[in-house]
Every structure is written in C-alpha cells, then in structure tokens.
C-alpha cells in the first residue's frame, strides 16, 4: 500500500517536476531595423529592440524577472596610447594593444546590472562596460591595465560608441520588453549582434543572440569608399581634377562679375 502510494506520488510528480526544470521560458526577439544604410543624410540611428517572454504553459512565475539587451559591433585590434606630461608638454608615452576591442557596445537592462546578476555571471556574459573582454597583449601589470581600460572605455562612452543604460528596458507584465539603443554616425560597417538575456535570481536563464543588424554604407558613400580603397590612383586623380575645376570655375565666375 505504502509502496504503491509512493509510486503513485512519483508518477504524479516526477514528470511535472522534471518538466519544470527542463522547460525553460522562450525568448522571442526582434528589432526595429535589420539593416541600417549609411547614406549622405546618415546622422546615427536609434534602434528599438523588443520581444516577448513565452513562459511554459503561460504561467508567469512569481518574483522578479529581468531582461538585459546587449548590442555588439565588430571587434578590432587597437593600440591605446596614454599621454603624460614630459618636459612641460603632453605627449604619448605608454601604450597597450587590445586584440579584440568592440567598435560598438551598448547594454540596456531593466534594473542596474549589479542588482540583477552576480559578478561571476556578469563576467561570463560580458555584461557591463567594466567587464568587456578586450584581450590585452603582452605583459602588463593590473593597475596599468585598469587605467588603460578605464581610459579607453570612457573615451568610447563619450563618443557614443559605448553605452551602459541601466533601467531602460521597459517591461510590460513581465512578458513584453522593449529597449532603445542609440547608434552614433561614427560607427563602423559590419554585423551588429543583439543578445537578449533573461535573468532570474542572479542567473541567466535563457540567452538569445539571433538578432543581427547589418550596418553598411550604400549608394554614393559605398561607391566613394570602394573607389578610395581599391582604385586609389583614379580616386586621387579625381580629387585633384575636382579641386582644379572648382577653383577654375570660381575664378571665371568672379571675373565676369
């Protein structure tokens, strides 16, 4: 009797409990624009990233659910130089190479990052400007590295290329979410990957990075860039001809006046 009861209980509860553990909420994500074309009128763009959380069997769990959205541009190897005062003038003294510095990085979250994730999770998922993996090369002591990191991140932040926007993911009924991220005109071309993370109790439950935004020059801007890169001789000659022509026309026009 007892055994049968236990068995019945096991049969009754096992699958559902197991189901609850394996069936994770699903993240549906999208973005206002999958393609950004850089043309002569391009002054930057604001992207709206949005989506919904589909809970298993539609049951919204109790407690807080948080969403963080990261938009990341292509990475580039860079040299960061630091100016110091030498003999009264400021000149570049130290430098560090970063092998993989993102050209663009913006993170929006529904609450401040340190309130929703622990340090380890934040480090794993590179959440926040102070956790970017820049891959410095060479032997550098940590104090120096910290200084360069801070300087580099701060420079990009003020240029609008790096952004950390806590509390800007708007959530509706713990199901719908929406975030706006600004892209300045000085972005580089490439594929920008948007990663959305569903966070609960300090841990990332689901992550989804299947939204990609392609930024590229089109039309005239693309033509000029390709010309300058691949047909430099022709491009240079064209620049010279245009300036000669404009100067000559102006001279002629004013002589008539």
């Amino acid at each position, binding site marked *: 009797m007892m055994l049968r009861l236990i068995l019945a209980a096991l049969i009754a509860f096992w699958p559902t409990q197991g189901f609850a553990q394996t069936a994770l909420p699903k993240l549906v994500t999208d973005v206002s624009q999958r393609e950004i074309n850089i043309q002569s009128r391009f002054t930057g763009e604001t992207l709206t990233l949005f989506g919904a959380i589909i809970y298993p069997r539609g049951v919204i769990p109790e407690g807080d659910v948080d969403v963080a959205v990261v938009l990341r541009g292509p990475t580039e*190897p860079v040299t960061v130089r630091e100016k110091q005062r030498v003999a009264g003038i400021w000149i570049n003294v130290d430098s560090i190479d970063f092998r993989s510095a993102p050209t663009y990085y913006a993170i929006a979250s529904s609450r401040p990052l340190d309130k929703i994730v622990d340090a380890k999770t934040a480090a794993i998922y590179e959440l926040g400007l102070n956790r970017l993996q820049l891959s410095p090369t060479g032997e550098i002591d940590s104090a120096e590295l910290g200084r360069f990191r801070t300087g*580099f991140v701060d420079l990009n932040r003020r240029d609008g290329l790096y952004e950390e926007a806590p509390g800007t993911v708007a959530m509706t009924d713990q199901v719908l979410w929406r975030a706006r991220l600004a892209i300045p005109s000085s972005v580089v071309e490439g594929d920008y990957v948007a990663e959305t993370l569903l966070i609960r109790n300090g841990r990332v439950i689901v992550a989804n990075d299947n939204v990609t935004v392609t930024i590229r020059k089109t039309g005239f801007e693309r033509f*000029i860039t390709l010309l300058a890169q691949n047909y430099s001789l022709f491009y240079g000659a064209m620049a010279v001809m245009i300036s000669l022509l404009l100067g000559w026309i102006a001279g002629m026009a004013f002589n008539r006046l």
Partner: protein
Amino acid sequence: MALGLEAGRHSRGVQGKGDTARAMEIYLPIAGLSVNVLVIILLGAAVGMLSGMFGVGGGFLTTPLLIFYGIPPMVAAASASTQVTGASVSGVFAHMKRGGVDFHMGAVLVVGGFIGTLFGAVLFELLEAWGQIDTVISILYVVMLGSIGGMMMRESLTAVLASREGKPLPPAKRRHHPLVANLPLRWRFYRSGLYISPIAPLLLGFVTGILTMLLGVGGGFIMVPAMLYILGMSANVVVGTSLFQILFVTMSSTMVHSLTTKAVDIVLAVFLLIGSVTGAQIGARLAQRMKPEYLRLFLAGVVLLVAIRMALGLGWRPDEIYTVQLL
C-alpha cells in the same frame, strides 16, 4: 577659430542636436562620421578669404580647425591639401596673366616638392607607428607659425609705424642669404632676377613638400618669406611662383595620400572648396582696398594666434589623455 572650437564641442553631444542642425548634417564617407555642412563651408570661406588676401594657401588654418571640429587628423591633413589645390588655381592664373610666375624657378621648387611629399609619406608612417605624429605636428606648427608670425609681426609693425610718422622706410636691400651664395653650380633665373645654385630652391621645395604631407599645408607662409629673405627673389614674382609651387605640390600630396593613407575625403574637400574658392575671390578684392602693411600685420596676428593656441594645447592637460589607433 572660435567657430571651430564651438563646433567641436557641439559635435560631441550628438543626441542634443536640434532639427535645423540635423538638417544640415552630411555624412563624410572616408572620415566616417557626419558633420554640419554649413560649418565646413563657412570654415572654407574664412580660410579662403585669408588665402585670397595674402596669397597663401590657408592650409595652416584648415587642418587645425578641422581637427578641432572632430575630423580625424589624417583625414583633415589629406583633405586640406586637396582644398589648397583648388584655392590656389585661380591665383596662379591671375599671376600668370601679369607675368608674375617664374616657371624656371617654379619647376625647380616643384621637383623638390615632389621628392619632399614622397619623403614626407615615409616620415608620416614612421611617426604614426611610433605614436608621436600628433605631437610632432603640433610642435612643427608652434615652431614654424610662431617664428614666421613673429617675424612678420615685427616687420609689419615697423612698416605701420613708419607710415604713420610719414617717414618712408629705406627700401630693403634685396640679396640672398650668404649660405645660398656659397652653394656650387649656378643657374640664371631671369624673372626672379637671380643667378644662384638650383640646390637652394630644390631644398626649399623639398622642405615644403614634407610639410605639405605632414600638415596638409601648402607651405606658402614659409615659401614666401624664404623666397624673399633666403633666396632673395624679386618681390613681384614671389607670390605667383609660390602659388605655382603650392598648386603642384598639393596635387602631388593629394595623390600620395590617396595611394598611401587613403585618407582623402572627397566630400569634405568639395564642401571646403565651395567655401574657399568663393572666399578667395572675395579676399582678393578686399586686399586691393587695404594697405599692404596692415594686411601683413593682420596675417601675422592670425598666424600667431594659431601658434599660441597650438602651444597652449601642448602645455595644457589635454581633454583626451587616451587616444585609439587601429592596428
């Protein structure tokens, strides 16, 4: 100058732009950012007016102003040299008409200039790899603009004072520097009224060629005093010949930049040109109404201002301690 600084601050706050400011924005494909067209045209016009008034290319103003505005230094230098080409064309024609160009001397200067731009390109790359290109550019500006501005200031002040007191200055004796006289191999430059070694103008062309490449300047502000006081050329061919040399050397520097740094932004250059070619014509007309010594005093003031601003920039704690360079 104030315009450029103002705009530089403005461009940082991309979010805070009004609708009218945004309507004037245009994207520069090579510089890779958007700028206000009106600011660029006005900047070109201001520089063009100066170049029309004084017969200098005006590159020494364009490059720093563009950098203040937020254009990457290399793009600023490369595109400014393209602009100087356009700004000097009509001047060269005007001087040719009245026989104010010594083509023989000009050719020697241009050959020196070509070699100089090639050498300058190598220097540019070395300095960039070393990470000291900004500092070298700033120091070059301070030293050159400071000394030439100072010299011009002293000379024009004496002239102004003399004309106020009604005492004409004794005409300056025209003669070349003793070092020039000692060089071997002499050629006759008829229009310049000189019998000197071609090595001197060749070296002068070479030096300005390097400066054109590094600073995006035509070099007129060095060329003119050097022709007068070092070579001792006759004054009526100095400006025309200097413009002639500037025309060819900036053309060469545009080509070299296009081939090596690939930093010539044709859109930026066109808008600068639209401003500067018109400004140059207005400046040339204004110059005819002004007394030459006051004109020189004014130019000396502008040159010294730029030099002082650059010097302060070196000594003050810069806004940006960190700079980023792509590998």
